[in-house]
């Protein structure tokens, strides 16, 4: 069914985007890493802005911040990854933790700790995506990601 192939295609494309961001001789070491992360996050930001217009079609206007975050967890995750986040925690003072135990971009990597340093590259785009969507919906934010173990 065409709908099921979407996620695989997106994952493959994303893997290549990450490789391209680092492959074009962007320099090694810390600055190279940071430059690549910035590029990926910027890409995600622009995509997030477009998604924020398209996804809530027909949905009612969000009344408060929590509504928007819940929309992220359910609709955005569902549209982009085909599943919802597993857990959402908040400290009611503006910090929200979205937890996903089977993050699609990382499930294909080897078990264990060996590629833990590479993980941020694969999360940068998603961080940008969330930040772009939130900024379009009126919430200025900073998004960080952390991985405890692969696959995560």
């Amino acid at each position, binding site marked *: 069914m065409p709908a099921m192939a979407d996620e695989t295609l997106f994952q493959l494309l994303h893997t290549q985007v990450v490789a391209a961001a680092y492959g074009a001789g962007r320099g090694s070491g810390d600055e190279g890493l940071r430059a690549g992360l910035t590029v990926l996050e910027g890409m995600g930001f*622009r995509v997030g*802005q*477009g998604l*924020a*217009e*398209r996804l*809530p*079609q027909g*949905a*009612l*206007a*969000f*009344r408060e911040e929590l509504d928007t975050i819940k929309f992220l967890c359910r609709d955005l995750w569902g549209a982009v990854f085909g599943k919802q986040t597993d857990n959402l925690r908040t400290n009611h003072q503006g910090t929200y933790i979205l937890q996903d135990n089977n993050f699609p971009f990382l499930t294909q990597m080897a078990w264990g700790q060996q590629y833990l340093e590479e993980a941020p590259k694969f999360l940068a785009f998603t961080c940008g995506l969330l930040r772009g969507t939130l900024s*379009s*919906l*009126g919430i200025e934010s900073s998004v960080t990601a952390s991985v405890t173990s692969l696959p995560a």
Partner: protein
Amino acid sequence: MAVCIAVIAKENYPLYIRSIPAEQELKFHYTVHTSLDVVDEKVSAMGKALVDQRELYLGLLYPTEDYKVYGYVTNSKVKFVMVVDSSNTALRDNEIRSMFRKLHNSYTDVMCNPFYNPGDRIHSRAFDNMVTSMMVQVC
């Protein structure tokens, strides 16, 4: 019969404004600008009231003797304002809603265009054509 259609960004500057006939453009600029206050009022009123339903379509903002002004706000706080000639009373609420829905869909397409930077004025021809079709059908 829309006489003027405007798209206003979150920061209240116009992204797109078009009116017919072209000579009265300045007057419509002014009308749209004043209607923004009414939009803000409605949006903040909806936020405070404990109403479960929050709609994107704002309805009639205010009528004058010549025309009526309708509003619609998206989730990203982009506002669409439509000025309609009062002489054409055949336009029902449903039609206005469907016009706004078309506007919203076209705006979403513009937003997803990778060559468009959010915050720039809208130069898309497809958007222009859609707006023209909405304004011409009125005459």
